[in-house]
């Protein structure tokens, strides 16, 4: 009789002081080199945007961080309160721009629209609000997407993934939680179940079908340690789980890149016209 093997835990803990220094420096550098001083970000009430807010305040000072809540009529009161909590603790002003009218203007045209479409519309309405604010404020939109959701594609293209720079994109959700705790994000925000807050009772982990704690460990082996599927199974992971995650990563590659341009000339943007964004700065 074979005993079921349990995967050995991977240590995903990070040095918070070092992470804070590098990430705050990144925000400061990227703004300064385009001649801007303000960060614009949406505060959802969740842990990712709370952490991005703390890092932006550290990088730029409270007066240079513009935070906005963008509730839809179904958004929970708790989300709004938690966003306020983050803003109060950081000492920043908090704007509130409801997206209900914007979103319903489109949603009401299509009776019976499914939850995915409605969620994508809400995410894209928020993107419009953020980019408009960034133009008004002469700032840059700070992204809040973490490595877990980027790899799994648990994000709306041109919606919540749209930003000018992303300080959190190389931190797994587990690491976002650790760093948030170490940087004194209120525990009530760090500890609550993550949610896109598109409808009452929704949670990320129910949507995904697994917990962040388990999928982060697997993603670390697959991506950072370059394990094959069979390596992961040998390490004790259930084959179906590994295959679902690998397929999800592959299927969502399109969300991680600019749209491909059909090559015709000798020099084409994206293939052989290669410059960093920071070119000349």
């Amino acid at each position, binding site marked *: 009789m074979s005993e079921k093997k349990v995967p050995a835990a991977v*240590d995903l*803990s*990070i*040095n918070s*002081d*070092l*992470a804070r*220094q*590098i990430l705050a*420096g*990144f925000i400061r*550098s*990227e703004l300064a080199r385009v001649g801007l001083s303000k960060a614009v970000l949406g505060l959802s009430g969740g842990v990712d945007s709370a952490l991005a807010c703390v890092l932006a305040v550290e990088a730029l000072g409270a007066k240079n961080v513009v935070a906005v809540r963008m509730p839809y009529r179904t958004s929970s009161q708790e989300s709004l309160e938690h966003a306020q909590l983050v803003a109060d603790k950081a000492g920043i002003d908090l704007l509130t721009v409801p997206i209900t009218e914007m979103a319903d203007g489109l949603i009401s045209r299509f009776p019976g629209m499914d939850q995915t479409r409605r969620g994508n519309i809400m995410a894209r309405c928020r993107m419009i609000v953020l980019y408009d604010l960034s133009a008004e404020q002469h700032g840059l939109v700070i992204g809040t997407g973490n490595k877990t959701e980027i790899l799994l594609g648990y994000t709306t293209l041109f919606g919540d993934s749209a930003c000018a*720079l992303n300080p959190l994109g*190389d931190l797994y959700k587990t690491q976002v939680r650790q760093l948030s705790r170490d940087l004194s994000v209120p525990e009530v925000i760090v500890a609550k179940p993550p949610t896109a807050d598109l409808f009452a009772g929704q949670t990320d982990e129910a949507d995904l079908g697994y917990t962040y704690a388990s999928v982060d460990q697997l993603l670390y082996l697959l991506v950072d340690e370059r394990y094959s599927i069979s390596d992961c199974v040998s390490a004790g992971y259930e084959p179906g789980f590994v295959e679902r995650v690998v397929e999800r990563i592959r299927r969502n590659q399109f969300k991680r890149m600019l749209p491909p341009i059909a090559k015709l000339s000798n020099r084409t943007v994206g293939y*052989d*016209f*290669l*410059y*960093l*964004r*920071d*070119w*000349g*700065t």
Partner: protein
Amino acid sequence: MTQIHIALAQINTVLGDTQKNLGKHLDYIHQAVSQKADLIVFPELSLTGYVLQDLVPSVAHKPRPEDALFGPLLAASREIDIVVGFVDEDDRHRFFISQAYLSRGEVAHVHHKVYLPTYGLFDEGRFFAWGDEIRAFDTRFGRAGMLICEDFWHASPPYLLWLDGADLLLFSSASPGRGLTNEPKLESARWVEHINRAYASLFTSFVVHTNRVGYEDGLHFWGGSTIFNPDGELIAQAPYHEESLTLATVDLGGLHRTRARLPLLRDERTSLVNAELNRIVNKG
């Protein structure tokens, strides 16, 4: 001269703007001179920035007195020896990641990077030609050798410089930080510090390393420039992540003392190494 004052110029750069970078070089050189430094060491590609990609041909220069970048630097080298990073375009229009040693108004030596990392986040082999020489050279402080970043991730280039007479190993890099764990230093920083300490110990030589700081898109450069003595002891370290001019006094008398105690250079069997290398290389 038994004591030399070395300045580690741990700077940030403007990507592709050589004139702005030259201005910063001259400012750091001026500060180093005012602090009585004999030698100032700048990082890899210090005149151009690191992730150059298609900017390479437009930022290339020739280390000659009539060159717009090297004219002022060569003039400044009458007061202080200068190690500077740039893109060298040779007479056949090949582009090299390069480090020049300027002294007394002349170019004493140019090293072309021989190992171009083209894996992971690196793509140097796509944009640059590979250097094909590893040579020590004479300075007013004794014999020295220069290597650039990936050059000293391989054991053979420092070893060859050692055998070619270099007692002062001058390393420059633009090392992107990576490998965040729960340790207080990044994996890349720990690795570089380990090997530099090891080279100083194994070759009973001084190892001077200047790394850059700043960001290019999402990459950050961690600084932490160091000098190790022939006993493998850390005698100077610049801060992590911040621009700085770090000065240290290197006592070349340490070479005599360490090698009297530990004659690794005397006992190195170069003919044996040569014979075995020949056998290994030619066995196919």
